[in-house]
């Protein structure tokens, strides 16, 4: 069983080395390198963390810390994970503010921002692709898109309407599939 210090150090290393999203590296760190969890335990815990609000890797750092060392472990996990990246990102922010009037720096960051937007589009496409055989789910996704991107509606009312609707549809679908069987 890892100590709080080991949990902190494990997630510190993970936070500082994971570029472009931490998820692929987490499994390697938690399951293969430190053997804190078995493969099945990891998948089960990740399922919970994806289900809850918040970034799934952040939730995972809390859940793993909590499971081994209670409150102090949970704190060690999340602080380890965000401490390093917070300092790096602020260093980048300072650099950006001091150089942002230089046209070359502006062009560099415009290119960076354009590439980052492209990565986000690819991620959205990968999430939308599995919905193409399910017209109801695709309709929910389209409604959410229109509300947020086109109408610029606030998130809270949008989710309060769409989430129960979508879960009700999923439940209806499951019940019908059950009755047919």
């Amino acid at each position, binding site marked *: 069983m890892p100590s709080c210090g080991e949990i902190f150090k494990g997630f510190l290393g993970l936070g500082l080395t994971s570029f472009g999203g931490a998820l692929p590296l987490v499994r390697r760190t938690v399951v293969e390198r430190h053997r804190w969890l078995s493969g099945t335990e990891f998948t089960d815990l990740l399922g919970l963390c994806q289900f809850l609000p918040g970034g799934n890797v952040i939730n995972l750092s809390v859940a793993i810390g909590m499971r081994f060392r209670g409150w102090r472990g949970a704190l060690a996990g999340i602080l380890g994970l965000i401490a390093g990246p917070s300092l790096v990102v602020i260093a980048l922010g300072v650099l950006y503010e001091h150089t942002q009037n230089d046209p070359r720096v502006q062009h560099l960051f415009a290119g960076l921002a*354009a590439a980052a937007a*492209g990565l986000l589009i690819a991620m959205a496409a990968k999430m939308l692709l599995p919905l193409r055989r399910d017209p109801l789910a695709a309709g929910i996704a389209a409604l959410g898109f229109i509300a947020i991107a086109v109408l610029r509606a606030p998130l809270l009312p949008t989710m309060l309407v769409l989430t129960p609707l979508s879960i009700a549809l999923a439940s209806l679908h499951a019940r019908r599939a059950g009755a047919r069987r």
Partner: protein
Amino acid sequence: MIATLVVLALIFGQLSLLAFGGGNTILPEMQRQVVDVHHWMPASEFSALFALAQAAPGPNMMIVTLIGWHVAGWSGMLVTSLAKFGPSSLVTVAALHAWDRFKDRPWRAIAQKGLAPVTAGLVAASAVLIAQASDTTWLAWNITGVCAALAFTTRIHPLWLLGVGSLIGLVGLGFF
């Protein structure tokens, strides 16, 4: 100053509990609050901060830290981080105990299935809004398009795409 910190705490505390499916689903609301409602920065700067956060290591929500720091310095950074990561972490701790008890209940799978399309629609909205704010020239739109296509069809590491995109911006945007 205190008033700003309270507003930051309220905004990011709410976002923390609404971030089903991860941080990218709440980007549009973050942008709406930071740019349209409170006028802390223009949309183009919001996109630049998002890009900076993407280039940094770690979980993909480091833009939260940057916004807090940009709006109210170190205390802003602390308040937004605490507000963004605190509430969802408390939910995780609470749910950890219930999770093992309800492991095999069918409603769990149904709720998960119902949340997936909502998440997908919100991430798509994020992508379009961020692209609109980032891409003011045709060259930038092309960088976005090529990066999206490459990230969708290949397994190239995202950092390569960000690096090459920045270089193309540095070299090309001066001329076009």
